[in-house]
């Protein structure tokens, strides 16, 4: 359900970003979404299509890249892909890990 709120936020941010006359009708919006965000891309797309938006954004498509969860181990220094349900270092089993990616929810860019 929170996808709807994110869809509205995307429109709010972009309507400010594309005011300049040099920006034409947007074809694609590039998004990066971390695995930890529990966002279902299809629901976000449906939400985005349903949210009211101006002419320049009306026909835009979302291009969503899901970013895997990666942790860096503070003990052995290895960078690994981790499972959502186990953030321990898969190499040395240390629980001292730092989250490197998986939490993003970013508009990377637009194409027109």
């Amino acid at each position, binding site marked *: *359900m*929170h996808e709807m*709120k*994110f869809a509205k*936020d*995307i429109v*709010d*941010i*972009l309507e400010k*970003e594309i005011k300049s006359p*040099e*920006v*034409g009708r947007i*074809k694609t919006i590039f*998004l990066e979404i971390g695995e*930890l*965000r*529990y966002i279902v891309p299809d629901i976000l797309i449906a939400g985005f299509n349903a949210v009211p938006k101006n002419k320049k954004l009306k026909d835009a498509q979302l291009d969503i890249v899901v970013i895997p969860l990666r942790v860096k181990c503070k003990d052995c220094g290895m960078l690994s892909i981790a499972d*959502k*349900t*186990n*953030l*321990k270092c898969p190499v040395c089993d240390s*629980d*001292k890990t730092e989250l490197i990616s998986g939490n*993003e*929810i*970013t*508009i*990377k*860019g*637009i*194409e*027109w």
Partner: protein
Amino acid sequence: MAFKVIEKNILKASEDTANENREVLRHNNVFTVNIISSPGAGKTSLIERVGPVLKEEGVPFTVITGDCFTTRDAERIDVLKIPVIQINTGNACHINGQLIKAALKDVDLTKMDLLIIENVGNLVCPAQFDLGEDTKIALFSVPEGDDKPVKYPLIIKQSRLALINKMDLLEHSDFDVSFCEESIKKINPGIETLLISCKKDEGLDGFISWVKENIKIKKERNR
């Protein structure tokens, strides 16, 4: 065809509001918890049990309770003469920072040590939104099953405390306490887990001590 790099966090506006709330709460030394659980896990029961004890011990606090459209939770707390503000999210699945910001205008923060936010019953969406709290508290209960931490890891990751409620029902269920505790630790090694029963008033001393300790730490840090 043209391209523009934007690099903007979609949650920026929400995070800015949460940070404003956090600053106001920090300025007034108000330790703030955001309790998140499934519907029916015992958020309101916890406040009903713990509230009167905190009141008796002289801890000044306020409860903000979120619900889609009823005032049932607030009524249960109001009966106990505990200051409570009801937020109705109008079918939205979570409380957001803006709603907390508005609610904070209705309370005298200078006379409070603790703010308890009872979020809408939902383990998915509320975990995504920072309200300006010091920490989230993940509340689970025995009848839900011991796999809930594994199924909803984000809330564990963001909490400093996990509570497992309805321990009085353990004998009637196949809930595996050590599996549940271990899966919580795997996601967040720094988290503390307490086993409680609001119904039988068991294990709640530990929660009360945790709250009082954190109030003390926050005050000392700001001194």
